């Protein structure tokens, strides 16, 4: 199935950036959790190896085949999501985990891959200049069902990360001005209804404290304040690896997961931030460039959706650490501790490489 030409076309630079970012992530996971029980850094390292293997295995299957079977993948993941919602046990206040003997996974992460494939499948033969109502509703449903299921767990942060996939499709297909207006109105209505009926109190609180974190320094504002203190106190050069007091003395919440970027900011200062931004910028640049390496419409869609999804998550996470976005539980892709997220991002990038390495193949 895989020939030498294709291996030669594998985007090794992208894989290199992927691994480099993940390894830096592990270094900071270690810094921020070495005093906690359970070796998080080592676990993440095993996840990295597993994700790397999965990446290559995934490459060996032509993405057109994956697209062809995408509806099955999608159905299976929806069933799993519904299943854990009905039968799952609460872990840390949500039903987002499938607990297996040695590890646990979050199906809500993996589902994103299936959503991307289904959407690619749907629009692979779509040739109109702008989105039709039918396709619009259908794509909203495809994204909306898992968003609803994940939101009910309740895991608002992960549900949020589905949104850029949908947006990416809209941008790719193109929207008429009228459609945009309708969407804006719908979004506003949804926001009002959501605020008054769907959002739980703690979620609303997170949004309101975004505006005035000092009002409640020990409540919802606490995390934002502590994160800003961590980053700001890092200064230009930082306090040194494993020497960040905000992180080491546990003032910073969720240090090895959602706030890992604050640890970087504290321990390596502005320099560390610039280097991380640079590496991420190169990584995202490589992803967006890959759009032009697709030989068909479906491939371009896949790459664009993946790039959009990762960029969105990255920005939401970084915005969150400096108080520009509510604390939403969105991890920093590749850096934050968490196997499911890492695996999903590797598989997503795997899809990108899958498309770009097969650009010269005749059908």
């Amino acid at each position: 199935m895989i020939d030498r030409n294709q291996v030669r076309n594998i985007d090794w630079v992208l894989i290199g950036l992927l691994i480099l970012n993940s390894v830096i992530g592990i270094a900071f996971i270690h810094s921020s959790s070495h005093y906690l029980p359970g070796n998080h850094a080592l676990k993440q390292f095993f996840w990295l190896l597993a994700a790397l293997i999965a990446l290559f295995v995934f490459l060996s299957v032509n993405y057109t085949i994956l697209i062809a079977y995408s509806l099955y993948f999608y159905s299976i993941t929806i069933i799993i999501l519904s299943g854990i919602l009905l039968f799952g046990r609460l872990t840390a206040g949500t039903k987002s985990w499938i607990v297996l003997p040695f590890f646990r996974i979050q199906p809500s992460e993996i589902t994103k891959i299936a959503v991307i494939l289904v959407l690619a499948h749907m629009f692979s033969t779509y040739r109109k200049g702008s989105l039709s109502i039918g396709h619009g509703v259908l794509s909203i449903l495809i994204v909306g069902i898992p968003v609803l299921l994940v939101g009910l767990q309740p895991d608002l942060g992960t549900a949020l990360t589905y949104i850029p996939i949908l947006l990416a499709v809209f941008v790719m297909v193109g929207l008429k001005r009228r459609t945009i207006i309708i969407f804006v109105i719908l979004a506003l209505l949804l926001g009002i209804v959501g605020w008054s009926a769907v959002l739980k109190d703690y979620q609303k609180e997170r949004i309101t404290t975004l505006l005035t974190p000092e009002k409640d320094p020990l409540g919802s504002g606490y995390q934002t304040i502590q994160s800003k203190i961590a980053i700001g106190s890092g200064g230009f050069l930082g306090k040194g690896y494993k020497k960040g007091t905000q992180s080491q003395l546990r003032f910073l919440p969720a240090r090895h997961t959602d706030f890992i970027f604050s640890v970087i900011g504290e321990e390596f200062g502005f320099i560390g931030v610039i280097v991380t931004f640079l590496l991420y910028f190169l990584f995202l640049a490589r992803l967006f460039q890959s759009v032009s390496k697709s030989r068909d419409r479906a491939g371009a869609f896949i790459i664009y959706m993946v790039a959009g999804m990762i960029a969105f998550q990255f920005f939401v996470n970084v915005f969150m650490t400096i108080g520009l976005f509510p604390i939403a539980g969105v991890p920093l892709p590749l850096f934050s501790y968490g196997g499911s997220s890492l695996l999903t991002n590797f598989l997503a990038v795997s899809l990108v490489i899958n498309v770009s390495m097969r650009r010269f193949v005749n059908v």
Partner: protein
Amino acid sequence: MKKEKKIYEDLTPIQNKAQITFILVGTIFLFLLFFFWKIQILDHNKFWRQSEANRIREIILPPQRGLIEDRNGIILATNIASFQISIIRENCQDIEQSYQKISRLLGLELSVLRERIEKYKFLPMFQPIVIMDNLDVNEVSRVKARQAEFPELIIQSEPKRNYPYEALAAHVLGYLQEISQEEIRQSISQRRPGDLVGKTGIEKEYESLLVGKEGRVLEIADSLGRRVGEISRVGSYPGRDIRLTLDFALQRKAEELLEGREGAVVVLDPRTGEILALASFPTFDPNKFISRFSPEEWLNLLRDPDFPLENRAIRGLYAPGSIFKLAMSLGVLDSQVVSEWKTYYCTGSTRIYGHPFACWFKGGHGSVNLINGIKNSCNIYFYQVGKLMGIEEIAKYARMLGLGSLTGIDLPGEKEGLVPDPDWKRKVRNEPWYPGETISVSIGQGPIQVTPLQIAAYTALFANRGKSVSPYLYKNKSVPTSEGQADIQESIFEKVITGMWKSANEGGTGRAASVQGFDVCSKTGSTQVVSTATAKKLGEREKIIKTHSWFTGFAPRENPEIVVTIIVEYGGMGGATAAPLAGEIFRLYRENHDR
């Protein structure tokens, strides 16, 4: 080429959109870079300070409070170990939930707990607030066992004040209570809310010596309040021990004698002014309310109609009654209004300025001169000489003997009493002085007011033949006590003392105070609490019940060593009630000093 075009569709529009999106991504990166530059470079100092404050915690090491001892080293106030539980609000996951859990754990009512914390809510969140104190090891171990569930609670040991003899000398020693906001503002040294400070007595007067210096530990703590390391440590410095002039045996005796009555006893050494005993009754056990909280005992004491918290010896204001006749005698002899041999005839009553004035002895004393006037405490004699002297002269001698002004004892709250004269009456009551009032003041009645301590100091002045001493309690007081000398001939004092000696030893009113071979010199008094007119209505028996019983005296006659002053409220006649009590004190002193 043509074939290729069929296979590859034109994706240029899609690629362009991707390019635009990527430019957007780059712009956001630039924006973020600017934002991090602001936080990490421009605002760095502010956040740096906040991160430092986050991890450094100051722990106060309470100093050991100085001991208080009697003159022979018997410890009257000491410290014992006790424990307190404090809450650090910063470590509460959920304040409300925390309150409820703590309330259950400690068996403390929720409203009490809330009120307690509310009082100190202005403190920074990391600073502990004491919610329970005076706990012993057993009570604390229960909490300690569940410490892991309660990261917001900390247990600290603190030395607790203890008075081993309970109520003994309670009015002298005073007691500790939580510092008030007012006191914090006024204090020179750094005191904090929750500190215990002396509120009365020696504990208050010598607070600055007793308190010592607290130690400070700066330690690094993590966000759960757990100690990670130490930055610096300055040990606490114990307070100075204070040795009092009090004599344990005499003090205990004085309190035993007052048991069941209301009144005061002052015993002092006339040579120096050292207070040997100072008792006030009813009294209280200060151990029962050394607490940051106001338990029932404390409120009961405050509500008690007999005012057990009042130190009657220095704050009780009484008419001196016949005790004032010593001052009158001195005035008579010094001003020479009449000679010491001049006699007046006492029939038990007389009329002056058209008003009847009675002697306490209905049968009358017959012919009375100065010495007998003192010995038998004849009112008629002093009415007559008082009339001749006039109020201005009387007031002059009263003030010369220290009445109407503070003795300067080293206890807070002393009262100065009152020596009345026409000026005072005009100013305070806006009325002229009536001649009849002079007659009342002549026997120590009317508006004149003294404290038992003033009478003791006044008696010491007689004992010293004119040399005055100011009474004090702190034995090692470095400031020399002020001494004065009344501008009156020593021979005049000797004459008054002769009368005092006869009062105790030749069947006078003070005879019940005499001690074999100890030459007690004394004067008794019985002061009317209600007016004569009211007394008449109540009848003879009531009148006796309603008089305060006074005794003051010293011994021995030559080179006096001890002054005893006693007042028993509603005790009846001075010679019948106060004098026997004084006799017991003289006897005990003599026994202890003749060995």
